[in-house]
């Protein structure tokens, strides 16, 4: 098992959001986590990555046999966990090229030159259909919603994680942008056997990234698990049959 979450309870400012989540995800597996707004999907994503605003009150999680919750966010990243943020922060004055080279060097414990890194980056940019001059812009500053999502995918391609958690990476994207995101994810699945946890409201993205498993969450608990046909059932009937 790549990721094993056992009876996880999480609070933010003393309000319990996750009320006992148990979830497994194998190497190279694709799991879709679906549910209406406020069901705790993003809380799960943020908690897995280690956002200090969320407090784990019970349960545990193992990632690649390591206890996740005793590690800082950067240590989790080093283990191969990646989160595509729903709302990425803007960092002024830090160019994308410098930032990406920094995280690439940290991840691979190396110190490659800007010129060499540019070659590495070229291929990744072409997957995302991003122009090279984009790299001189400041990280996420003044980006449109779609640009931010692509920027998250670019970081994923640079870090090549074992597991990518995509927190509503599909929302707000037009069909062309969605295809590009799917292309980036598929690329790493094929090349590196990356596992994916897709958090989404919509079944649309699942046409491009076929899940091995679909999990439905409501009000902090998992109410149903099934294969990819469950997504179709959701699409037809909505969340109502999976309530309470």
């Amino acid at each position, binding site marked *: 098992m790549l990721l094993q979450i056992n009876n996880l309870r999480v609070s933010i400012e003393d309000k319990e959001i996750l009320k006992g989540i148990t979830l497994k995800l194998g190497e190279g597996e694709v799991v879709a986590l679906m549910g209406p707004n406020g069901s705790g999907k993003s809380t799960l994503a943020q908690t897995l990555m280690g956002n200090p605003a969320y407090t784990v009150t019970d349960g545990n999680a193992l990632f690649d046999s390591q206890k996740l919750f005793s590690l*800082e966010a950067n240590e989790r990243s080093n283990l191969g966990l990646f989160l595509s943020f729903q709302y990425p922060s803007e*960092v002024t*004055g830090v160019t994308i090229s410098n930032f990406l080279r920094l995280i690439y060097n940290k991840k691979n414990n190396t110190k490659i030159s800007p010129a060499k890194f540019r070659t590495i980056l070229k291929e990744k940019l072409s997957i995302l259909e991003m122009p090279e001059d984009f790299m001189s812009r400041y990280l996420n500053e003044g980006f449109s919603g779609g640009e931010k999502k692509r920027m998250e995918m670019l970081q994923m391609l640079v*870090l090549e994680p074992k597991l990518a958690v995509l927190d509503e990476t599909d929302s707000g994207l037009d069909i062309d942008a969605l295809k590009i995101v799917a292309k980036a994810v598929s690329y790493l699945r094929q090349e590196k056997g990356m596992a994916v946890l897709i958090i989404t409201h919509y079944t649309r993205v699942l046409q491009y990234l076929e899940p091995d498993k679909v999990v439905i969450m409501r009000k902090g608990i998992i109410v149903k698990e099934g294969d990819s046909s469950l997504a179709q059932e959701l699409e037809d009937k909505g969340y109502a049959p999976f309530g309470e």
Partner: protein
Amino acid sequence: MQDIKLNSNYKSKYGFNVKEDFVFKTPKGLNEDIVSQISAMKHEPEWMRELRLKAYSIFLSKPNPTWGGDLSKINYDDIYYYLKPADKEEKSWDDVPQGVKDTFERLGIPQAEREHLAGVKAQFDSEVIYGSLMAELEEQGVIFLGTDDALKKYPEIFEQYFGTVIPAADNKFAALNTAVWSGGSFVYIPKGIHVKRPLQAYFRINAMNMGQFERTLIIADEGSYAHYVEGCTAPVYSKDSLHSAVVEVIVKPGARFRYTTIQNWSNDVYNLVTKRARVEKNGVMEWVDGNLGSRLTMKYPSCYLVGEGAHGEVLSIAYAGKHQHQDAGAKMVHLAPNTSSTIISKSVSVLGGRSSYRGLVSVTPTANNAKCRVECDALILDAESASDTYPTMKIDNDTAQIEHEATVSKVGEEKLFYLMSRGLTEAEAMGLVVSGFIEPIVKELPLEYAVELNRLIELEMEGSVG
């Protein structure tokens, strides 16, 4: 690209001092005899001795300023005002005393010189010890000398300009500097000459409790261009130390001059500097000013825009750490029509440090169509630190266009978490946010200074988180 070697340990790089080996040193404290003695030691003309004495009496008559930072701990009687470490300026590197060399070695000066420098004026304590001018500069007729030497070699030009931009009576510390000044640089760029590589100087305080009072005088003649760069680091001492420099720049019609300073004084230094440029018709003056370290810095580079179409710029960074107060800013005085100015000031406060922006923009009735833009941004890294702003506008002309923007921001947990999720430690994430914040100014610095500054920020961050 060239690799710049940096030591990883801040203390060993910046906190050392080599053995003092002085030829002459005045006793602690100051009186008329000591002022005269300094002048005599330097074999100065009578007018300079008289000017020093007059300045000394002005210094005595003025109280410490009550605004800015806390100056009450300065004990003027407990300071050495003049030290002379060697007899004359050295011509070649081989002649430089070993102790001095060691200091420069650790500062990386010899390498820097080989690679980049057009000329070195490295000040060791109160005298210029080592200076070399490349043939290129000499051919162009550029004068780049220690100020003491310039007084001997070019007395006419010296007397014509010295103290004209910043008279002794300007403020208490300008008076003190005029009374006891020693060292500093003298630069003259002839008409129409463009100096391509930056002129560089390094300053360093290396004797316990000694004041450093360098005096720099720069004349950029009509249509000329040059960039002067100075960098400072200082060893760590427990007792208070005073640095009070005066920098005068005269920008003649159509000339353009840039003066870049990166200062990193040790935490016990009072850094009270007066910097001012007089900018004539269509001239351009740019001050790029980075203030790190010191106990208290009070520094407000200024431009007196006296000629039509003159332009002034100040780009400044202040970094206030533990027990530090950076009171920095800029002054723009518009005295002629169609003059313009820009002030961009960025400050970072951390570990209880305090940074203040203090600025003055003045537009006189004769300065029609003046334009000025002021932008001051503060970044506060923790709850103990503070930042404040004192912008003064004296606009006596209806045609003036003045813009003022100020922002204060904090580094949010969300941003740090975002960066850490990409594999950066908390200190690295914080360092990245800080370097990004000051980037608009850092990109104006020569490469080796930019690298050095970013490295300093990283080291500071390592010490300031968890």
